[in-house]
């Protein structure tokens, strides 16, 4: 028995040493992913890693950290944890993790990255970090997502570009027995912020954030009044503002026609109800308001750590993932917009062009979300959609009371 045990242990040792010897022969890069194993994104990444290894011999060791990766990254980067590629929100990588990331400018130029990316997103990255410190993936675009079939049923032929036209579309939809707009409570801040941006621009909102004076600002009062009128006209689907994702799901059931959000709403609804016939409308312009060219854009991104010993290999794998076959696969499998504009977005065909043509990006409530009372402001926004305010002035007075 003892001999057998000794023999087994010796065998394990020999095999382990052999494995180490083999592993030592090839290059390995470590990638901390923001996805969880089994998610569609993770499946595509794992496939890409296998294909990359088959092509180059570089093994990609993927650690699935999930969306909580941001809780771990700072500590890991500060400690110099052996990571080659990190993945998170591009804003955080461009700002928070920038000191620990590699300047990819030269590698990107050599790889012709400019032709495989959206300038609006790469400009954001270089603006935040001072250099190209990450490669953007899974881009997002915001606006009004609508069900084309519902529009057809209601006889809507022209897409609205102004608020007046938008209200006309709402009236047609309501007449056709379809609730015009779904609205979950979780996104009331985004919808109202978008509406405010159309009146004041993000700089105008930042002024209100810093100095208050909402009730004295005619445009802010009008923006709130518009939402009150929208609610009073019965243009919100029954139950809205509802608990996420109950209201947005009503676009899937056919009860509602539109929802204001970023493009991931389409993937979320499709995951429950199957593929919908989606379209995207730029948030309408306001009479006498700010530029309507401003569009919400967001993304995740991949960066190479500044201390990576295999920066080129890591960069090459990132490019392998965000361009060509695997980028297309990611877009198709996970219901996302491709990171490479040469690829196509089957479920939302106009999204690629929207991103390509956008020059003025809007943040996720960035002019307000640093206000100390941001949490209470969000509650007021939801109350606005609940119809709790008699008029725009009453809402703005409540906003001023938070200062």
């Amino acid at each position, binding site marked *: 028995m003892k001999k057998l045990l000794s023999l087994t242990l010796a065998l394990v040792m020999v095999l382990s040493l052999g494995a180490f010897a083999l592993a030592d022969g090839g290059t390995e890069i470590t990638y901390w992913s923001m996805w969880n194993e089994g998610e569609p994104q993770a499946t595509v990444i794992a496939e890409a890693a296998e294909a990359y290894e088959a092509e180059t011999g570089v093994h990609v060791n993927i650690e699935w950290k999930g969306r909580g990766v*941001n*809780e771990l990254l*700072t*500590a890991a980067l*500060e*400690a110099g944890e052996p990571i080659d590629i990190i993945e998170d929100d591009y*804003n*955080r990588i461009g*700002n*928070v993790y920038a000191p620990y990331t590699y300047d990819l400018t030269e590698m990107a130029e050599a790889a012709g990255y400019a032709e495989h990316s959206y300038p609006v997103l790469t400009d954001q990255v270089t603006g935040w970090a001072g250099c190209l410190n990450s490669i953007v993936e899974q881009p997002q675009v915001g606006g009004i997502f609508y069900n084309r079939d519902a529009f057809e049923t209601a006889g809507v032929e022209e897409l609205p570009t102004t608020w007046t036209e938008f209200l006309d579309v709402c009236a047609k939809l309501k007449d056709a027995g379809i609730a015009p707009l779904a609205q*979950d*409570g*979780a*996104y009331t*801040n985004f919808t109202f912020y978008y509406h405010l941006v159309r009146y004041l621009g993000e700089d105008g909102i930042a002024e209100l954030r810093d100095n208050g004076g909402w009730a004295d600002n005619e445009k802010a009062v009008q923006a709130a009044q518009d939402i009150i009128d929208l609610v009073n006209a019965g243009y919100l689907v*029954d*139950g809205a*503002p*509802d*608990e*996420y994702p*109950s209201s947005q799901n009503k676009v899937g059931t056919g009860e509602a026609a539109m929802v204001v959000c970023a493009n991931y709403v389409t993937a979320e609804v499709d995951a429950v109800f199957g593929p919908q016939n989606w379209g995207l409308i730029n948030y309408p312009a306001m009479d006498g308001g700010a530029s309507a060219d401003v569009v919400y854009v967001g993304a995740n991104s991949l960066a190479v750590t500044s201390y990576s010993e295999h920066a080129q290999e890591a960069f090459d794998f990132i490019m392998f993932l965000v361009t060509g076959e695997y980028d297309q696969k990611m877009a198709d499998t996970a219901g996302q917009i491709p990171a490479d504009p040469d690829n196509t977005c089957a479920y939302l065909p106009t999204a690629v062009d929207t991103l390509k043509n956008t020059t003025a990006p809007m*943040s*996720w*409530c*960035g002019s307000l*979300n*640093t206000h*100390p*009372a*941001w*949490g*209470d*402001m*969000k*509650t007021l926004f*939801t*109350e606005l959609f*609940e119809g*709790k305010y008699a008029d725009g002035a009453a809402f703005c007075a409540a906003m001023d009371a*938070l200062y």
Partner: protein
Amino acid sequence: MSMKKNRALIFFFIAPTVICLLLMYVYPVLRTVAMSFFRVESVTADAGSWTFNGLANYDKIFHNASFITSMKNFLAIWIVGGVITLALSLLIAVILTSKIRFQGFFRAAIYLPNIVSAVALATMWVQYIFNYDYGLLNQLVTFLGFDKVRWLGTDAKLWAMIAAFIYGSIGYYMLIYISGIEGIPTDLYEAATIDGASKARQFFSITLPLLKGIVKTTITFWTINAATFYLWSKLFSPVQTEGSTIVPVIYLYDTVFGGKGVIERDAGAGAAVGVVLTLIIIAVYVITDRLLKSRDLEY
């Protein structure tokens, strides 16, 4: 074996535990307290990069509307939730120790929510019971001929969350009370019954006074639960933090790690929140210890 050798052996045996305790518990606590007086961006930043900030972190959080809202929500959870949970669990414990039929079944049924994942439990409440369209409560409301209620609207969301949390907590406190009640000698009740004391009188004159120590423990446990309340708030506001459900630990988390679209981080202010919560728990413990003296009771 000499006393000296004995001491050395004792030291040798307890040293690993003491070292682990110092490294994993005392050091983080001391570091957090120190951090709360410094300007620190990242929670793991080297102490050399900290900038002394005096009481500015405390000043910041106590002048922050979101923190104040979170403290109000915490108070609602602690007081309203606490009174209802502890009273109901004590009542159920008394009933279940009074030799009723199917005791075992009721104990198991009431304790059941504690063995179900809190995530599943909260999802059931949010997506089914409180659902506006097909939720259990609105089905009941419409059956009775009333209009549907927005249970998770801004006015009601905190209370809805507290109600769900109470449901998930009662079983745990019930078990603590049951173990306390079962520790009371039955001859006390037998004597009281012979003397003609009613069940209510027995409860107020025997059970309750002899449970003082247990009540003190449950109040401390509840305070810790309310102060560290996080998961339920996160599940009732899954996309981003909302004013109606924000609690101090959520505020702490957002302050330390940033939130949706927010990249600013302030680990020093986060540490200050942690210190404030710890002081609250200690204060509650000291006060309840003074008010509910159980040391003079022997049985």
